[in-house]
């Protein structure tokens, strides 16, 4: 079965992790990769443009949240833009109109993602496989149309001029570098939370459901409840990512709820490596960088993204991190 399923974890014996990082569930290779990630987060803003890095981290968190579903439960959601986009709208609205501090605005975005996740998960979990993908896509399209009509979203204009505000009411975030540290912290918390979930007994049950759902059910696990919880968790973190992005750029628009955004997060995760811990972040980094440098080519970006999709599916299903892991014979 494992070879047929959409993600297959490479069979490697569990290597003991570095002391201290074991508690996070990392093996040795993952611990090293995580330290590299920390180093990148710490020195990145001194070499690269902070706004670009913040955008990258928002999408990385979004992709990690998406990967929790596809990589560890085997559910392909084609509507994650609704959580990302609506999280952005709610964060923007609460910061601008209700005067929330940034941390509360981001949490509001996450709460919106959770609420939408409960509703759409309740509907979509009834079907599996391809139908699940189509249902989530259709629900996201409905949310898109609602956003187009609702007054608080500002329709085609979106919500503009959202203030970054003061963290905890004290630290001014209008400087890009200060905002960067908040975004990096949000990303790290989300990343570690997902990793903790994956390596928990709960995460092991999720993997069991992915590999063989009837068997997991016959062992007494309520598969639908587990799927639902994972779905809501993923939606919440996608909402957090969307909310953070809205604060970074001071704007929330229809782009983030559009179906193309749902496709983009699938692409990032696929390119980085489905079911790997670090893959989604790497995939997000590649795609965001590519969009940044190819922006002037207009519609060709879409063509290139489509091309990457096709190549990944036909010849490169393990993704970048998956291939590296296979080459090094470790789990990443």
């Amino acid at each position, binding site marked *: 079965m494992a070879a047929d399923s959409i993600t297959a974890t490479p069979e490697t014996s569990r290597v003991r992790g570095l002391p201290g990082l074991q508690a996070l569930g990392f093996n040795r290779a993952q611990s090293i990769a995580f330290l590299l990630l920390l180093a990148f987060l710490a020195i990145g803003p001194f070499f690269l443009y902070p706004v670009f890095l913040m955008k990258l981290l928002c999408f990385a968190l979004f992709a990690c949240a998406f990967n929790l579903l596809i990589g560890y439960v085997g559910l*392909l959601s084609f509507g994650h833009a609704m959580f990302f986009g609506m999280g952005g709208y709610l964060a923007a609205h609460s910061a601008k109109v209700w005067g929330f501090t940034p941390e509360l605005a981001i949490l509001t975005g996450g709460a919106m993602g959770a609420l939408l996740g409960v509703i759409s998960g309740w509907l979509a979990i009834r079907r599996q496989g391809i139908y699940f993908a189509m249902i989530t896509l259709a629900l996201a399209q*409905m949310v898109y149309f609602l956003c187009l*009509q609702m007054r608080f979203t500002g329709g085609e204009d979106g919500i503009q001029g959202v203030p970054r505000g003061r963290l905890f009411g004290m630290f001014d975030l209008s400087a890009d570098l200060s905002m960067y540290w908040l975004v990096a912290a949000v990303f790290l918390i989300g990343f570690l939370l997902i990793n903790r979930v994956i390596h928990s007994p709960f995460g092991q049950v999720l993997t069991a459901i992915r590999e063989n759902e009837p068997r997991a059910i016959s062992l007494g696990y309520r598969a639908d409840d587990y799927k639902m919880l994972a779905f809501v968790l993923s939606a919440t973190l996608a909402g957090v990512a969307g909310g953070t992005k809205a604060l970074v750029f001071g704007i929330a628009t229809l782009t983030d709820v559009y179906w193309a955004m749902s496709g983009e997060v699938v692409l990032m995760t696929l390119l980085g490596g489905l079911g790997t811990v670090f893959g989604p972040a790497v995939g997000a980094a590649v795609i965001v960088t590519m969009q940044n440098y190819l922006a002037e080519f207009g519609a060709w970006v879409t*063509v290139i*993204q*489509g091309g990457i999709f096709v190549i990944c*599916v036909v010849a490169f299903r393990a993704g970048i991190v998956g291939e590296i892991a296979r080459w090094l014979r470790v789990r990443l």
Partner: protein
Amino acid sequence: MIEDILFQLELGLPQVVLGLVNGAFYALLSLGLAVIFGMLNVINFAHGAQFMMGAFVAWMLLAWGGIGYWWALVLSPLIVGAFGIVIEKLLISRLYKLDHLYGLLLTFGLALIIEGVFRNQFGSSGLPYSPPESLGGPPVDLGFMFLPKYRLWVVVASLVVSLATWLVIEKTRLGAYLRAATENAALVQAFGVNVPRMVTLTYAAGVALAAFAGVLAAPIYSVNPQMGSSLIITVFAVVVIGGMGSILGSVLTGFGLGLVEGLAKVFYPEASSTVIFVIMAIVLLARPAGLFGRA
């Protein structure tokens, strides 16, 4: 109260009938999706892009070759269908042993490529394509409303093609092979039927149906690269509502939902863009397998 509703309905009847035109496209597209899914177990995300290609090929035939609507109605599905054969042989056929979701991802990528190429070539503003003269002329008087001849033709053509597809699949020898291979491909192959070729041709036929719908749509909507992508998402909802088990089921659901959308435009216009998705949610709660689906 009831009189009010009847009066509103009478005023809105044209809208409801126009809903049938949308329904015709839903029916044709969900039919193609169902045919492809039945045989290949692949949800063809590129269906919307192939619908758009159908419209563009019709436009190109006219603008560059001077070939008119009626020939385009035949040639465009053939050309786009041939393109489908290439796609199936080169790419999709590599995925049959994998999880079905990969088929969805691959065809999504193809849809992005096709749409992007057309947007580069033709821009996103849309090109005009006028209906043939024989279908222009004064609108037809239906007694309660005037319907442009062309829209009437769309409904009729869609019905005829859907019915023909149903007949081929249910009543002919080829259709019998097809249904048998859907149930058990290995066994049918053991009987000496060339199943891989049948799969390829099925994909081509499904794609040709999308292109046919595209040519029908060209004079109604302006021919533009995005015309397929949002339509296909609605059609996915239609497919979820109907279930992909039966051909007639897809056709009925398609037309039915077109009508419902038309009704929504009369009674509550704000909901007309979302009503199909709401129905999908209700159907999922009441009958998760879809109205005509097998659990």
